[in-house]
């Protein structure tokens, strides 16, 4: 199958332009990160370093977890709207009568969510690290800057957002109500977070091999999800709403 980068680029550019001028999306992308950075920073700055080991680790874990909620939540909001939103505003029919393939359309839609999510998530994580380095207690800062913590955040951010994006697009492809799609997508984006929670709270002993194993599993799911969503993408059903 020959993919057309021009067609993917056309949809991607269209989406990014549309996001930029959509107040709901602009507010979501600006306000949500503020919430998710304020909470962990406040937790760390008020953290008493004298508390015993497991409690200390839990508080650190919660702060880092907040950083991973962002790449799960942002795409779930955008991806849930991606197909059903086109259908609602009547743009889906003209798009689907062009030579674009379902695979190209879906990849473009996924990239249009992935790019801003990653940019915002890494940017916010950068601010978090900067604030910790400058203002947090040196023991707290040293714990946060442990290589495994940083690596977990960097690796799991795109993987978790990939999961959210594909579940969001799958739901958006199948459900005919925007609100229902968004609520379901937020719920569906949570399972990978559960594992990260268990690791951050040391319920599952975090180890490099475990993290790598989970990363590989998520990566495979993200890759296969694209194929799965493509099979759900039925032009006739999307246009007529009939199964």
């Amino acid at each position, binding site marked *: 199958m020959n993919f057309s980068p021009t067609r993917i680029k056309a949809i991607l550019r269209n989406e990014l332009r549309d996001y930029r001028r959509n107040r709901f999306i602009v507010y979501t992308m600006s306000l949500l990160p503020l919430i998710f950075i304020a909470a962990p920073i406040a937790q760390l700055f008020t953290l008493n370093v004298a508390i015993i080991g497991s409690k200390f680790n839990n508080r650190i874990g919660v702060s880092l977890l907040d950083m991973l909620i962002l790449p799960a939540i942002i795409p779930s909001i955008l991806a849930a709207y991606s197909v059903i939103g086109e259908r609602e505003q009547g743009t889906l029919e003209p*798009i689907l*009568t062009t030579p674009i*393939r379902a695979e190209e359309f879906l990849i473009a839609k996924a990239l249009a969510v992935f790019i801003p999510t990653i940019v915002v998530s890494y940017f916010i994580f950068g601010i978090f690290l900067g604030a910790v380095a400058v203002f947090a207690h040196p023991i707290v800062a040293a714990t946060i800057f442990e290589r495994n913590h940083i690596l977990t955040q960097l690796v799991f951010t795109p993987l978790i957002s990939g999961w959210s994006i594909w579940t969001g697009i799958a739901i958006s492809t199948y459900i005919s109500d925007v609100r229902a799609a968004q609520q379901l997508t937020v719920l569906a984006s949570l399972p990978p977070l559960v594992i990260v929670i268990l690791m951050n709270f040391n319920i599952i002993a975090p180890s490099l091999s475990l993290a790598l194993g989970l990363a590989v599993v998520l990566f495979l799911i993200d890759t296969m999800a694209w194929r799965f969503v493509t099979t759900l993408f039925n032009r006739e059903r999307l246009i007529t709403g009939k199964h």
Partner: protein
Amino acid sequence: MVEDLTKSFGERVAYKDVSFEVGYGEVFGFLGPNGAGKTTTVRTLSTLIKPTSGQATIAGITLGSDSDLLIRERIAIMPESPGLYSRLTVSENLECFAGLYELKDVKNRIDKVLKSVNLADRKNDLCGSLSKGLRQRVALARALLSDPEILFLDEPTSGLDPVATRDVHDLLMALRERGVTIFLTTHRLEEAEKLCHRVAILNTTLKLIGSPAELREQLFSRNLEIKTGSQIIEPERIFTDISGIQSWEQSVSGSYIVNVSDPDVVAPWIVRALVGAGIDVLAIGETRHSLEDVYLELINEDVEAKQR
């Protein structure tokens, strides 16, 4: 070319055994009441919906899952709702579609199509700020962007005011002059009569197909309307003596409606007979049935058949 095309959604039949041909450069009107299957037919021919049975060849390519992409490269559709991105400008909307068709020289093409729909000065306006008529024109520009072999227009003037409707008609007339093949679905009969070379009337099944004049001839006998200066004393004697007259009746307005085989031959005979009887003939002419008469006749037949 469409042969015995049928589409059902479960028990419900959208259209059945539809067959017709559209020639290159022809403007083909597809008429029918709401729910007749017009839009579903257009969606089938534009590869969005798979037919239940039958076959079709569009722009020389046989309809089938392997050929969908090839067909979509050669056609363009303007759906009933313009389907524009309201937060993007006119130009940005067209840029997106230029990319989807992988067109070269995008800027010039956009300028050219916007000029053709008289929107060159609105290219930087947000589509959401345009009136419905202007949005229809943008949608038409978008459909013309790829220079399609076949242009599908689904109710292009639906919901437009008379001025906007006239503007769209003028644009379609210009396309007709340029020889663009157009498949136009509408339930506005004057629109079909004005724009189309041939029309088909669909009400789940295809009722009739032909030029508006042919359809009139197929459905209606030809009539002459005669206005006289005074009442004809013995119309029965005068009209039955002339060969070629099949029947006659007096209308409410007082004129006489005479059913004839060939108006050109019979009219002079009628005039001679009436003048010979001392009656002044004020006017005589063939009454014309509109496409609306044809349409209503067919649709009423359907309703009556269903009631039986």
